[in-house]
């Protein structure tokens, strides 16, 4: 090869083909799918919570894409039906994830709707799941004097015995933690969807 123009052109054509297949065609095919009727857009606080989820990299251990029964027992684990493109129309950035160091969270709002459980679990996962390797997130909470929290009208966490702070102290969630839990509670895709159209 003696011609640098051919080299650059050939290289660009090869990448162009790949871009057409993996970026442009999916754009044409699935970027304007309609949202399922029962999928609600995120509220402002849920969006703030989603930003906390992104900022702290929850996606690196939790996927949001249950697979089909034929491929994996995701449904039997209570993670829900296989997801379809319509489920993600309000998702930006997408949070499909590539690891399941922890369980899939696509339907965590349906599986574990309790706000108390979610908050306490974020504060110290091992208080609820003994063998868990999830990090604890003390920086999303403040430890306060019990009386002070009561005066400010804040609701302290009810932690399992052995995990509460010292006598007279309580753990109070920050607004970030409350938003994050609102987002987790909103992760509920249990509504039925029509089976996906046969793939061409």
């Amino acid at each position: 090869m003696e011609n640098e123009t051919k080299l650059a052109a050939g290289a660009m054509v090869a990448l162009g083909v790949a871009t057409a297949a993996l970026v442009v065609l999916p754009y044409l095919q699935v970027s304007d799918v309609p949202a399922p009727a029962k999928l609600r857009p995120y509220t402002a606080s849920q969006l703030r919570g989603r930003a906390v989820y992104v900022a702290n990299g929850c996606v690196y251990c939790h996927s949001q894409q249950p697979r089909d029964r034929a491929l994996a027992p995701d449904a039997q684990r209570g993670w829900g039906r296989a997801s379809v493109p319509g489920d993600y129309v309000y998702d930006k950035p997408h949070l499909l994830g590539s690891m399941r160091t922890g369980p899939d969270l696509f339907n965590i709002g349906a599986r574990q709707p309790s706000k108390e459980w979610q908050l306490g679990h974020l504060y110290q996962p091992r208080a609820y799941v003994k063998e868990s390797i999830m990090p604890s997130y003390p920086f999303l909470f403040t430890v306060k004097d019990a009386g002070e929290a009561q005066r400010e009208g804040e609701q302290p966490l009810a932690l399992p015995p052995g995990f509460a702070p010292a006598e007279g102290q309580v753990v109070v969630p920050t607004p970030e933690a409350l938003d994050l839990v609102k987002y987790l509670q909103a992760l509920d895709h249990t509504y039925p969807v029509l089976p996906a159209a046969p793939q061409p």
Partner: protein
Amino acid sequence: MDSAALSLLAAFLLSLLGLFAFIWSLRQGLLVENPAAASVIFARGEVGRVDDPALHAAQQHSLQAAATAAPPPGADAADLRARVLADRSSALPVFMFAAFACFWLLLGSVAGLTSSIKLHAPDWLVQQGWLTFGRIRTVHLTAVLYGWITNAALGLILWLLPRLLRTELRGAPWTLLGGALINTGIAAGIGAIAMGWSDGMEYLEIPWQIGLFLVAGLAMIILPVLTTLVNRRTEHLYVSVWYLVAGLLWVTLLFVVAKLPGVHTGVQQATTNWWYGHNVLGLWFTPVSVGAIYYFLPKIIGRPVRSYNLSLLGFWTLAFFYGQVGGHHLIGGPVPGWLVTLSIVQSLMMVIPVIAFTINMGGTLQGRMHLARWSPTLRFMMFGGLVYLASSLQGSMEALRSVNAITHFTHYTVGHAHLGAYGFVSMVLFGAIYFMLPRVLNWEWPYPRLITVHFWLAATGIAIYFVALTIGGWLQGLAMLDPARDFMASVTLTRPYLEWRSVGGCLMLASHVVFVGHFLAMALRFGPMRTGAALFGTARPEDLELAYGK
């Protein structure tokens, strides 16, 4: 039309195209071997002479004696002079990129080891947000991918191209500015991620506003590179030039398309994410490293690559197939079925360029493998080349649905990614830096034993890391597929393997401390001075020639 008929038609058209390409290549004489083209990396009369600047003169002699009984009488003086001038024109930018690369390597591996330990000690360092696993892990990824590998790759490109094109680097000051911009972007990106400002997509976490720095910096490197290419003094473009120039253009385009703000959403964004995620490995790290091996390995052993045309076949098949493999990260996901199938097929097609590369390198090394005992640089290159074969074949297998069902979502994939990015790419880049730096600084590596220490620490580290995560990830995947077992079973069983991973990570970090320390010692002029005058000094090329092969 149904999908079966469509795919049959596509297969028919493809084979027709393949047939035409074959006839065309016959007419062009591409199947006739071309030893002259393969020899352009040598000066006239230099074939047969070994070259490893990381060795002292005495060691060079034993390397030469081990290679051939009778070394060639002498290389063409004009060619050597051109090479010295080429090296001098790129010395400052190359040194800058290598120094940045070393800095990010050290920072990135500390962050990596921290996140590894956090996976089996989840209550360690949890009080600060920036130290939480999800952020420090991403700091690690950004520091090693963009900071270490990309900087080292850019340095390699700027050093190799003037040599291969027998001309001086044009616009060197622009590359310095480009490097400053890129590293500003990397530093700002890492700071942003640590603070919790992230675009949220794997490999693309650097916020797009900061990404503009990277794009501007890359543009300022591409322009001098293309100018140098146009002003070359060789007729033939050696295959490494293809890999390096194409890789540089590819990564820039990839980054721009993937980062376009406000375009990508939902599932389509996920396909774009993995199109980028796999291509940054396949069309940036891989071509740069393969291009480096195609230069350094023949150069060290003093023998041109066995089959030059095979290397060209490898280039074009890599260019075509690798770009389309990203969809295999979404097997079983909510994406169009045709896309996943296409990616699985192209993942398997990747066997072609990998086998072409391996046959070629095997043939070139035939009868000279024992030289790795003398040359540490060759050892790094051979290790990298072998791991390229292993990790690519492993990657092709992982794309199969049956295997992917087990390995997807597990630590197995993490092991594979490190085998590629560390065992292959980083090892090649280490070797390249050991070769380049004595020429860049005109100073020998002060403590050559440290190179061997570095090699064995790194090789043992990645071996432990890979074996632990491969076994642990596989068992984890099996546990997750078994509906009778609780999900927590898949977590608890991985813990010993995650601990072993940290052991491997410790060895790798130790090797980097040795490497960067050695680099600093050299840059600060420790150790005995053995070759020529100082860098950036006033040395005349005539004086430097002594250092080159005489």
